[in-house]
């Protein structure tokens, strides 16, 4: 699937397994997930709540310990890393993460500047230099300098999310994982943030864009991976996935999204797809994943 073989992939996930809980409560969150992200590539991950999108991101960030499989970041295998190794890796800022809700991911008592330059301060960059770099990245997400002294609560939703993106950028990462970055925004702000992501992509940054909003994923991603019940059921070029979905779940997903010019796929069709997915679930009897309930 990878179309760029001459450079080392930024992220390589192979046969990833993640389980939550212990013994009888043990539930499978991810199963056999394989995903490669090349430098400068944007991969969209779509799927609904509980499909394992966020778990995938958290495993890559070391917040969740996989029960099987391998994860490599820029050629470095990180699966068995200790706490110290993880901290060292994170301090280098190779992988950054942008949360869905910037109101909760920015400390409400710290000014924009403090939050923005925090990764640099952690790395030990002197404050003056960190501030200068922070300013530069704030300009890159099209925010004015006078926001630096404000608190997150005084900003609009769109401004906050841009601050969060700038914060991810200051560490000069190789890969940014964005978890539903535009879901909490209204359409004007959504367009603004997505435009910034496109610029980053064009500047050669590798992005993983997790979302359930097909339109924004289709607009930004080169490739799309579809997660369903903890497994990647389909990966392919964005246009193909949107226009010629192969797996019934992807078809249901595309068919469910209402659009302005075309009504969403007919109800009978959706119901047929749902029924087929149910059958598939029952067939996989050995899976300990109960249907979402």
């Amino acid at each position: 699937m990878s179309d760029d073989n001459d450079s080392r992939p930024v992220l390589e996930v192979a046969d990833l397994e993640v389980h939550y809980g212990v013994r009888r409560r043990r539930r499978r969150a991810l199963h056999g997930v394989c995903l490669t992200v090349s430098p400068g590539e944007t991969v969209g991950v779509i799927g609904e709540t509980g499909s394992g999108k966020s778990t995938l991101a958290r495993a890559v960030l070391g917040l969740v310990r996989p029960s099987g499989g391998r994860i490599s970041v820029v050629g470095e295998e990180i699966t068995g890393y200790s706490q110290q190794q993880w901290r060292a890796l994170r301090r280098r800022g190779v992988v950054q993460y942008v949360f869905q809700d910037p109101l909760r991911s920015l400390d409400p008592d710290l000014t924009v500047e403090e939050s923005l330059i925090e990764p640099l301060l952690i790395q030990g960059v002197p404050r003056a230099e960190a501030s200068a770099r922070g300013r530069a990245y704030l300009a890159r997400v099209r925010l004015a300098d006078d926001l630096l002294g404000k608190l997150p609560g005084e900003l609009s939703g769109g401004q906050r999310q841009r601050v969060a993106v700038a914060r991810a950028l200051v560490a000069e990462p190789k890969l940014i994982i964005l978890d539903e970055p535009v879901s909490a925004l209204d359409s004007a702000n959504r367009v603004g943030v997505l435009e910034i992501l496109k610029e980053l992509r064009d500047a050669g940054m590798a992005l993983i864009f997790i979302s359930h909003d097909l339109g924004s994923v289709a607009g930004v991603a080169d490739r799309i991976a579809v997660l369903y019940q903890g497994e990647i059921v389909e990966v392919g070029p964005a246009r193909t996935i949107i226009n010629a979905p192969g797996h019934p779940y992807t078809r249901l997903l595309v068919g469910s999204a209402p659009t302005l010019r075309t009504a969403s796929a007919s109800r009978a069709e959706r119901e047929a797809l749902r029924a087929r997915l149910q059958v598939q679930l029952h067939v996989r009897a050995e899976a300990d994943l109960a249907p979402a309930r």
Partner: protein
Amino acid sequence: MTGTPPDKPDTVVPADAVVLVDAAVPVDAAVPGDSAVLAVRDVRIRDEINDREIVHGVSFELRPGQVIGIVGESGSGKTLTCRAVLGILPEHLAVSAGSIHIAGRDIGGLTEREWTDLRASTISAVFQDPASYLNPSLKVGSQITEVLRVKLGLGRRAARHRAIELLAAVRLRDPELVYDQYVFELSGGMLQRVLIAAAIAADPQVLIADEATTALDVTVQAEILDLLADLRERIGLALVVVSHDLAVVAQLCDEVLVMRQGEVVEHGPTEDVLYHPRHAYTRLLITEHEQYGLERYLDAPAPAAPGPAESPDPPQSRGRAAQAEQPESAEQPKSPERRQSTDRKVLDGVR
């Protein structure tokens, strides 16, 4: 790309202040028509703390089985208008002018008690975050029977029976099981269905859905939208759909109000407003929507190659992209006559 998107945004821009209201919509009718279940006339909402007007005159009328959509960015006054209709404005806000009639009754002078009688049995609402509107320590079923016992005076047994019917009517797969479950055991989509079941339990004529599908996954959103369309078809429920997603409004509504900063800038049938917008702001909203709308990335005319052979039908609706004037799919009856003739009691017969 085919399809007729709205006029290019850079064509004639009418003055911002001009409010475009379709002549066909009788907003100035002195007496709301008998058929209107909800008539909102020139409602203004004032913030009493700083003495500022927040909503500057909203008017619309809703007949049984009709669906009206309110769109606009956050802070445009959509939600406040709905709260005014439900009589649940925040303490420091008040309706300062205009009138609201629910089923022919002016709600201006209602006492707390009369309000209680009116809510749930005539007008009802569902909101964005279903989990916060349900009590986590009670079984969801008992929260529906509560409505039935208080509003309809049903006995314990009858209420349970009816609640399970309602859960089935909102298409929950295993209503008997869901009845005895708690909030934490159900997914967001299921909770929204439970909430809708509770909202329609006392047979209201109007349901206000304020961003009711915003927090849900697309597949679940589609199911909820189907459900709402279904309810309106079967029991003639009139809906007010508040959303910032134009596509949701396009799919469900007959009429659209576009609000900006407390003002209605455009109001008319969905086809006119969303496909031939006249106000610059409406156009802006549409442009913003389309910039990352799914439609932009769909290779429009060629229907998606149906994957393996088991596909029941290619998504036929895609092929109709060219006919922008009729965005609704065929199974949603649009003629008011048909809808009004549907019997409200049909729901009782469901399973």
